[in-house]
Structure formats: C-alpha cells, structure tokens
C-alpha cells in the first residue's frame, strides 16, 4: 500500500497507524500524528486503519521561538 508519510511516498505493509510507526522505525512517546489533516492521538493509533494514498504527518518536539 502506498502512503504519503511526512511528504514522501512510502510503500508499506502496515494496516494501522501504530504498525506503520513500527514498520518505519519511528519510536518514542514524544511523537504526534495526524492522518489526512486530522489529529490521531497516541492512544488511538492502534485503531486507526490506513488506506491507499493516506497522508500521514509524524511530528516531534523541536526548538521553537
């Protein structure tokens, strides 16, 4: 299945968002996720099913002003 992860097309086998994070080796409790422009809370990722062409954003804490 092809997904767009942080702006890049990825071919993955994961069917859920938490499985996708594991497959692509995104690790840690400090990640924030969104699917097609909607927040997916950390506790909801296992129930978040993915579909062909979905856009996923995976963000992390950074320096900011």
């Amino acid at each position, binding site marked *: 299945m092809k997904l767009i992860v942080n702006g890049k097309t990825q071919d993955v086998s994961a069917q859920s968002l938490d499985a996708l994070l594991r497959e692509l080796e995104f690790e840690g409790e400090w990640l924030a996720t969104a699917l097609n422009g909607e927040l997916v809370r950390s506790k909801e990722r296992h129930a978040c099913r993915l579909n062909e062409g979905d856009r996923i954003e995976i963000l992390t*804490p950074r320096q900011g002003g």
Partner: protein
Amino acid sequence: MLKLYEKQIFSRLLLGTAQYPSPAILEGAIESSGTEIITVSLRREMMGGNSGNKFWSMIQSLARHVLPNTAGCHTVKEAVLTAQMARDVFATDWIKLEVIGNHDTLQPDVFALVEAARILTEDGFKVFPYTTDDLTVAERLLDAGCEVLMPWCAPIGSAMGPLNLHALRSLRGHFPNVPMIIDAGLGRPSHAATVMELGFDAILLNTAVAKAGDPVAMAGAFAKAAEAGHAAYHAGMLEPRDVAVPSTPVIGKAVFS
C-alpha cells in the same frame, strides 16, 4: 507576580529555544534568564530517527513550563491541527498561537488568528496569541476567549525594538487588567526596559538572546532589564519637562560677589 491562565509566574521573561549555538548554551541561557516558561515547536520527525527525544529529554530535565507554538502555520486549519498535535505530545493546553499572514514581515494574519483562537478556546486550549499592536484585534481576541495577549513591538527577529510606542501605550491603557507579553522584535535590553516601563507584564525573547555574542550573558542582561522596567513602572516615573529644574536647592546658595 504574574498570573497566566491561573498559573503564578514570577519571572518577567519567556524564552524561545531556537537558534542557539549548542544545547549547552541554550541550557545556560535558560538558567541565567531565570525564565519559568520556554517555547518549543513541533516539526517532522526523521524516518528511523529519534531526533526529538534528545531535545525533549533536555527540556523536561529543566522543569520549566512549556509553551508550544504553531510557528510557520499560515491557515486556521494548520494552526488548529498543530495545536492539537502539540497538546498530545507536550501534555499542556497552553498554546502560543501564530498564524502568519506575510512571508516577508511574518506579521500575523489577524483575521485567521481570531478565528483560530475561538476554535481552540472552545476546545479547551489556553491561547497565547501572537498578535500586532492593533487595539481592535486585541479586543476581538479577548472576545474569542483569550486571557493573555502577546503583541509584537516589531517584526520577528528584526531586533528593531518598539516601533510604535503610542500603539503600545494605548493597548496597555485600554486593557489594564489583561496580562500582556511583548512577543517579537526586541533586540537589546534597553528595548525590554522600555516596553516594561510602559506597563507590559513580560517579554518573550528568542533571536536577541540566541544570536548574541554570548547568549548566556545576554539572557541575564535581558532578565535584569525586564525587572528594572517592571519595577520602574510601579515606582512612578517622572514625566519629561520642557524646562530645566535644578535638583540642588537654590535657597541658601552662597553669594560671592
């Protein structure tokens, strides 16, 4: 003491965490500023990496209040989603709301700002809006549920210092009981003292400290200037006069000729 959404804050300086030469210098600047509130952002994580971990661990170890921002957002939708994602990661309902309207000046899109502030307030956020010094916009933001305002005094990172003292004075005068933090445009400690002497409650700094020759020393200098301006405002300053007034008594002066 300053009250920001029910939290008691004693420092008059909020500090951004970007652009420092090293994490150690950032940590030193946070310490020397005495700040209790530091701003952070959310950015894309690298695949297979955990770049956020090191930074976030350091921030957590400093035990300050964290104020996440929506820097770089240009639409209501972007800003609202970023705020929601920040709340999920940082476990705070505080959000420094930025909705940028112009690439060159980085001035806020105040129309989108008010709309985003209303949506986020209704969703339980405690919004710190980065706004201009416009009085009407300030009123709309308060109507939208903001309990704190963060007007600029000059464009972000410009170091120009307060450009419109009249507007700032007017803003302070119209909303005497609203906590107001000057966010953006300060370049040197005298700028900080100037806006604090106008009665603003605190300042938010990043570039002026991070890009100084010695950020740790500059953070301390800004903290002292902010405190000095704050104390002066409450001490009652002398108004300027057009004529000289001798400070030494004239009565009793010797006559030599």
